[in-house]
């Protein structure tokens, strides 16, 4: 098994005709992901590298049976694209890669989806999801992954790659790697992903990569204490980050003493998580679990 994406994933890409969207979508296809459709309003009826393009997501779903949507559209239109994907019957997962969506749009869309649909949204501003050997929906470099028993979840893009790389170079494979993104209002939280990894038979251990700002790691710690029986290894970035400075991710702002890397490390250690202070130690830590 795996979570979110696997062999049954049938992918429709919003913004497939764009440069970035096309580059990554076809990389995903080359990896074996079943890319069935693209959506670009006004380009319906055309096709790109054998993939049919539709004007709307619902037409794409009707014609191709797509069940997973990936959004690459520019920030001014991304919130609307997510709403469109969520409204299309048959779509069971939305992955929004777009970076730079206004926080007000994110907050409105997140709450509206919570109130009106059960379709999970991963992102925005995230690297996507890969289940090694099965499917890749996003921008993660699949070369660094390896099928295996570890679930990886992270708020950071490139840091996720680093963590996966450390695992793979030690021969430790992954069930699924999920980048939830570091924006102020991510559609999917650590807790959502932990719940799925806990329920996934093939996942034997979990790697959680956090960073300063917000309280997502503290919420994860609470959930781990209550619900997670599998071993968890964690790394938190930003130990030396200057307090109060904005570090790229709009989320990464330290407010007072809460949200610091130290506070997060302590919260996770207190519930039995193995916390490492160097991303290169993640592989070692997981290897020493067994």
């Amino acid at each position: 098994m795996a979570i979110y994406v696997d062999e049954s994933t049938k992918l429709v890409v919003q913004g497939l005709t764009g440069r970035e969207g096309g580059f990554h979508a076809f990389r995903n296809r080359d990896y074996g992901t079943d890319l069935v459709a693209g959506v670009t309003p006004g380009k319906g009826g055309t096709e790109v590298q054998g993939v049919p393009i539709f004007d709307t997501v619902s037409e794409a779903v009707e014609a191709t049976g797509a069940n997973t949507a990936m959004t690459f559209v520019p920030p001014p239109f991304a919130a609307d694209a997510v709403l469109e994907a969520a409204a299309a019957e048959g779509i069971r997962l939305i992955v929004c890669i777009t970076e730079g969506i206004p926080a007000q749009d994110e907050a409105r869309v997140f709450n509206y989806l919570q109130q009106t649909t059960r379709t999970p949204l991963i992102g925005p501003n995230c690297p996507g999801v890969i289940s090694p050997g099965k499917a890749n929906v996003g921008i993660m470099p699949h070369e660094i992954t390896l099928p295996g028993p570890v679930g990886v979840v992270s708020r950071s893009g490139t840091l996720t790659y680093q963590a996966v790389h450390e695992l793979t170079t030690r021969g430790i494979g992954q069930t699924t790697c999920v980048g939830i993104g570091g924006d102020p209002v991510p559609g999917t939280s650590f807790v959502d992903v932990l719940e799925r990894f806990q329920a996934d038979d093939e996942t034997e251990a979990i790697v959680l990569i956090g960073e300063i700002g917000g309280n997502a790691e503290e919420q994860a710690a609470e959930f781990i204490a209550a619900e997670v029986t599998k071993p968890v290894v964690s790394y938190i970035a930003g130990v030396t980050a200057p307090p109060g400075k904005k570090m790229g991710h709009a989320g990464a702002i330290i407010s007072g003493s809460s949200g610091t890397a130290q506070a997060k490390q302590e919260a996770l250690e207190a519930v039995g998580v193995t916390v490492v202070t160097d991303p290169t130690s993640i592989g070692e830590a997981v290897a020493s679990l067994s």
Partner: protein
Amino acid sequence: MDLFEYQGKTLFARMGVPVPQGSVARTPEEARAAAEEIGGRVVVKAQVQVGGRGKAGGIKLADGPDEAAAHAEAILGMDIKGHTVGVLWIEQASDIAAEWYVSFTLDRGAKRHLAMVSAKGGMDIEGVAAEDPDAVVRLHIDPVIGLTEWQARALVYRARLDRPAARAAAATLLKLYRAFVDLDCDLVEVNPLILTGTGEVVALDSKVTLDSNGFFRHKDFEDFREAFTEDPIEKLAREAGLNFIKLDGTVGIIGNGAGLVMSTLDVVSLVGGAAANFLDVGGGAGADTIRNALDVLTKDEAVASVLINIFGGITRCDLVAQGIVEALGSLDLPWPIVVRLDGTNAEEGRAILAANADEKVVPAATMREAAEKAVELAGGA
């Protein structure tokens, strides 16, 4: 982007929130002229993007133009928590009957908007919240329908603001919330929101943080930046689309993704060094981006070595390598560059460097090795 008080008030006025009459002044003479035009008693207020200016002597009451000019003379150039005062706001003195605190922000934990209102405004609100938590009323707002009228009223009554002014206070909350949402703010804070002797509700201060991701909806917001005295290196970086923050160490850091860059800072610190900066080239950086990033670091004299840490995903390592090679050819780079490439097209990138780079470029296989080499090349811990 943190706005100056007067910029925030400009936005408030645009949204129908009453603010006192005032003018910007950059010299004592401008302060005098502003005071003359306003007439009567005025307040001379330092414009800085940091709190606590009142305690630091950055706000002074003046009886007339002469005193306003004298206060301006004293406040201009003052250093307030590391910010040098270059702009003043001269405004009509207000008749204050009550001082309240109001803010709207996003509660990331609850994923909803959060309103906070207190009858104990005009002072350090964090202190109030710590000592007397009930004095700060909190209410979550569903961003789908926004602040409702009943919520605005509930905030006013629960915070025990002056009852006869309840209707005006609630109306002002609704306008401030509209400003928060419609103007794409991360924060709208008014401390104090005052009740005047004649029963009006007026925003006497403003702390507005704009979400730059929303600027495509507000073409004029970029202009606010003109008033700021920005660090020249940070300005250069921003104009090149790079996310740069100056720090205190000697190892210049370039990486892709905020998490990886933060982590690189941590590892440099772990091996005994200190980063000179945080520089995130973002996702999908091309050769130009890398060249520009290196160019930015040449302006920082504290840099003794540079660490480029790239894990390719949307970013392609071959383009990164190409950017390094281009920079070596076109820029005068005074320091060694430790380069660690992994992920998308990493091998191609390493091959490009091996074939084209000079001895300034030091390859490293892992993040930790890269940090150790860069710290060593910078002259050790």
